[in-house]
């Protein structure tokens, strides 16, 4: 059974039109991560939530925001998508922020920007 669920699997949006990607988890993990993976590149961390605390990576553009209304759900909001934001977006969870904790990934949402 899927433990980290991302919806939708594929999302198409228009240039500049806000879009929201969704992630839910059944693991009751404290930490939720969002990674961006562009074609043929390594997944790159955008930000993470530790419980309700939001932690942004220094080089994450302001265009990217996130919300975590409760333990189970986390959203990635792209306020004004550009062509360069087309990518696979991966959500992951872990029990806590110890680097020895395993991260569990969702299947990802592939975002296309027209």
């Amino acid at each position, binding site marked *: 059974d899927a433990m980290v669920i991302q919806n939708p699997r594929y999302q198409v949006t228009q240039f500049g039109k806000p879009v929201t990607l969704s992630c839910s988890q059944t693991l009751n993990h404290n930490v939720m991560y969002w990674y961006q993976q562009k074609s043929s590149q390594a997944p790159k961390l955008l930000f993470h939530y530790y419980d309700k605390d939001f932690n942004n990576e220094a080089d994450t553009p302001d265009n990217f925001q996130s919300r975590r209304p409760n333990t189970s759900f986390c959203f990635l909001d792209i306020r004004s998508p550009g062509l360069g934001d087309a990518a696979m977006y991966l959500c992951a969870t872990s029990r806590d922020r110890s680097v020895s904790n395993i991260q569990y*990934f969702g299947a990802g949402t592939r975002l296309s920007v027209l």
Partner: protein
Amino acid sequence: AQSVSQHNHHVILSEAASLELGCNYSYGGTVNLFWYVQYPGQHLQLLLKYFSGDPLVKGIKGFEAEFIKSKFSFNLRKPSVQWSDTAEYFCAVGSSGNTGKLIFGQGTTLQVKP
């Protein structure tokens, strides 16, 4: 800054051939190392990990990896690949600092021909 380099971007093997995928990391301190695998259409999942102790670690499905500190390497091996091993393989290092952040390599696509 920490970084991870995977030497082979695309590997094609016949069934029963031996596999070795290279991974080098740049961080000189204590490291936590991971190999993740992504089968077609599925989510990233942990193949194996190294935190400390025996530098030769065994993972699922007959995979193993060897941590060589002097070479900053964590190469993945399998003596005899199967068609079902066709997937993308990512090496990752756990970032220093209390974030649990993973720094990924670019990935290696393995295609196993029956």
